[in-house]
């Protein structure tokens, strides 16, 4: 690893200014659990590492006036998964944070880092897409917010402009009579996902589905959402026939790859299995009055 300069600026503005001094050679550092290996094995020269952890206020959870939640980009997975509000209102997100590595990783790995690293297997990215979360970005030219689902272009590549910094992730208010689930497959307990799925379902008063979102990880170059799930399941009881139609759409949409963890063929088949499980379980929890997450 080549040596580099290390900065720990106290404000977002200073971080952005430092980055601008050498846009090619700079990297933001959050938990470092991805960046470290990139520094070790990466091809391009890194001359400046800008640590974001000295900036106050980026690692908290705040409730918004509309009942939505704002999660700091520097929030570590361990804090996220233990937060009561998140566990009750955004269960799938807590469940996805719970499986990111082991405790030493979760104590460092941040939510923003998981998204900015742009791995299609990033666990928390999948429920965030299902929850239709927004990423809040900051740059010298100002701020913007974009849907998480539109964050990525390819494995390892985000739409962030050079030097643009993610400061927060905003979750819309939890829906009434809703439930969320996260499912993933691995080769052994401590592994990166072979593939993953997350579903959010909210119900009409008559118990049929009102709003359904489904997102899948590691079956395409980026985490993807499956809009057909919402279209097909709307006003249904999430019955087998409807689920079968969603599974068909999933299998036609995914573009998995072969790697040493699994073949594309297996991933394609499993995408259907996990999608169905995530949806069926979400529906079952939502319909069970005691289980309705509110």
């Amino acid at each position, binding site marked *: 690893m080549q040596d580099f300069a290390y900065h720990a600026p106290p404000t977002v503005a200073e971080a952005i200014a430092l980055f601008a001094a050498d846009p090619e050679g700079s990297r933001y550092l959050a938990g470092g659990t991805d960046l470290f290996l990139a520094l070790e094995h990466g091809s391009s020269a890194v001359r400046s590492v800008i640590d974001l952890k000295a900036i106050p206020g980026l690692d908290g959870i705040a409730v918004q006036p509309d009942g939505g939640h704002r999660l700091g980009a520097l929030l570590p997975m361990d804090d996220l998964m233990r937060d009561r509000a998140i566990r009750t209102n955004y269960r799938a997100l807590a469940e996805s944070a719970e499986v990111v590595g082991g405790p030493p990783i979760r104590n460092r790995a941040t939510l923003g880092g998981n998204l900015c690293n742009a791995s299609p297997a990033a666990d928390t990215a999948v429920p965030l897409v299902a929850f239709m979360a927004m990423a809040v970005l900051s740059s010298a030219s100002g701020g913007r917010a974009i849907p998480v689902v539109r964050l990525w272009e390819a494995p390892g590549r985000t739409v962030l402009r050079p030097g643009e910094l993610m400061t927060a992730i905003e979750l819309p208010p939890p829906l009434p009579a809703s439930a969320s689930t996260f499912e993933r497959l691995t080769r052994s307990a401590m592994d990166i996902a072979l593939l993953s799925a997350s579903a959010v379902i909210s119900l009409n008063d008559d118990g049929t589905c009102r709003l359904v979102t489904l997102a899948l990880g590691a079956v395409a170059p980026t985490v993807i959402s499956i809009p057909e799930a919402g279209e097909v399941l709307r006003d249904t009881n999430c019955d087998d026939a409807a689920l079968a139609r969603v599974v068909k759409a999933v299998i036609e949409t995914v573009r998995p790859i072969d790697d*040493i963890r699994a073949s594309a063929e*297996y991933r394609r088949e499993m995408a259907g299995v996990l999608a169905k499980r995530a949806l069926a379980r979400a529906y079952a929890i939502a319909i069970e009055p005691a289980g309705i997450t509110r």
Partner: protein
Amino acid sequence: MAAHTYNQVGKPIPRIDNASKLAGQAIFAEDLQPAGKMLHGLVLRSPHPHARIRSIDTARAEALPGVRAIVTAQDLPDRLVGRYLADERALATDTVRFVGDRVAAVAADTREVAQEALGLIDVDYEQLPAVMDAFDALEDIAPLLHPRMAEYEVVAMAAPAGGNICSLNELSRGDPEKAFAQADRVFEEVYTTGMVHQAYLEPHACLGIHNPDGSFTVHSSTQAPFQLRGMIADALAVSHNRVRLVPTEIGGGFGGKISMQDEVAALALARKSGYPVRIVMTRREDFLCGTPRAGFHIAIKTGVSNDAKLIARTLDILLDGGAYAHGGVLVSWALPNFAEGPYNIPHLRITARCVYTNKPPSSAFRAPGGPQVNFAIESEMERIAAEMGWDAVDFRRNNLMPDGHVSTSGATMDCVMAPETLDAALALSGYKTDQTRPAPNRGRGLAVGNWNVGGMASAAVVKLNDDGSATLLTGVVDLTGVHTALAQIVAEVLDLAMDQVTVKTLDTESAPHATIAAGSQVLKSMGDAALRATEHVREQLFALAVEPLDAPPSRMELHQGDVRVKGAPGRSVPVTNLLGRAMATSGPVVGQGATGNYKRMPSFGTHVADVEVDPDTGQVQLTGYWASQDVGIAVNPVAVEGQIHGAIVQGIGMTLSEEMIFHDDRLANANFLDYKIPSVLDVPPIETVLVEQPAVDGPFGAKGIGEPPIVPVPAAIANAIFHAVGVRVTSLPITPEKLRKAIRAKA
């Protein structure tokens, strides 16, 4: 269970190295920091699986500030070395045969500089076609990986057979072909297993020093100080006394720390630079250059009679030996001795071929060959029973080898405890022979494992200190807690408290020859040497006591610091008095003991696994595990249990998730992210029972225990999966993807 009343032997005594290890004070090889300047060494390794080296240019690297020395084969004598077949060099001359083969080495002031220097060494390679599959290696058109094999010196056991076959071993009895013709049914199947890495937590490391008198000192995390010393000295073309090998604490080995790694490179760098040189492998290097368990291809054919008897069997086994003949040759040699399984089969032929490929040299890994072959044998027992409509437990019982069984190799099998371990495992797990499925997709599987445990020549010295306490001097390293067991043996014989016994590991210069710490035989070999050395001490004490006690030695015993006359507690003399007398007459009391190589002895274990299979995904969850193990006498039951737990979990890894995967002729998963060893979340609750029956030889009747408990694991789990979902995956590891495919094929 055997009744024995000892003071120390058989007690769950905590390990004597606990305090230093638990406080983080144990010094492993990478922790060594000699006084004064030390250089950091790194090895330049071949990026190609097979290539000719046209030239090596080190000029640019040498010019880099901070670089102190660079060595290539030019700096070493022209020597081929090997434990079994002398087929490899400490640094490559003209050919590299696997990705990771050592080409050159650099010593620099810092690791970073050494790293940079590696990138500045220009090697001109001419790539050669690679052989990445054991079957391809057998083809007539396959490139010969060692064209001069016929000229290699056979050091031990190897039986090179031309082509790429570095060892061919066969044993048979009866006439299997004729018996197949007469059998009521004949079953044939092929089983394969992947190449798996020992994945000890501590990567290899060593520190090389060139001494002022021209001799060498090397510290290494090795299981085999004496054997490694010999290879290093041979590679340097110096006599063995000129190399002092100092074994360090060792962070796990499991057979993977027997071969030579970077020791000679470190010494050559030390000689050239004038400074001590430490080489610490990265995890990736260790995956590339370690000496993993060979992948097996096993064709098994079995003839049975309608009365549930095994009549005939042939096993044709092809082992992927990798680039050099390390332990693969040993495994090939040993296979015919244990591959008959725990059964008595009148007509039997076992053929093993170990072939060269352009993969890392495969070698020993805990019961090398054992779990692979048992996977085939015990899967077949279950399959045959199911197809014949027999009870699989009865079928096994009907064919287990009897005590005194004569194996294909002609050895008599004493202390056969196969039925006892079977019964114990059934009782422990509450196994019902009318195997109804407990719930959909849940299943239970069983396997009986056998292994041969032995012992290798070893010697030990016990010194008595002037207060009667004792120090055992040994050259064997402690992987399993064996030093604690050795201390228990010394304490037992001299009737001392544990803290009155010290066990000291010495280097190869000061210790008498010791066995390697592998092969489930340390306790047996070094234990016996220690026992004899201690008995030698006792003998001397008794001789000194003849005059004061006025009794013959045969009537004496040691009791808490006194020698006394048996049955007459009043007639005693303190050991300290006797030692005082000794100083005035015969001199200090020092005992020596030695043993030669032992005949190998069978050891058995029966394991039961419970699984739950997710048929839609092929994922397997282990929900319970029970193991009975034949241990002779457990000198230290905690240590013995620890060995069983560890072996089972390694077995779980090779069964469900571990495999070295080669893509485009290169290892594609050379790290823990991609090569999955079990974490605590992959391990079910494990219950064990020790079946104790003192063995005919071995200290206090102890049998080796390090290896045997890994043997039945894959088959037990595979049988449980079969029970759960009715399909059999015949290749290890049984990944979710393979199992899902099999389930789909059946549906």
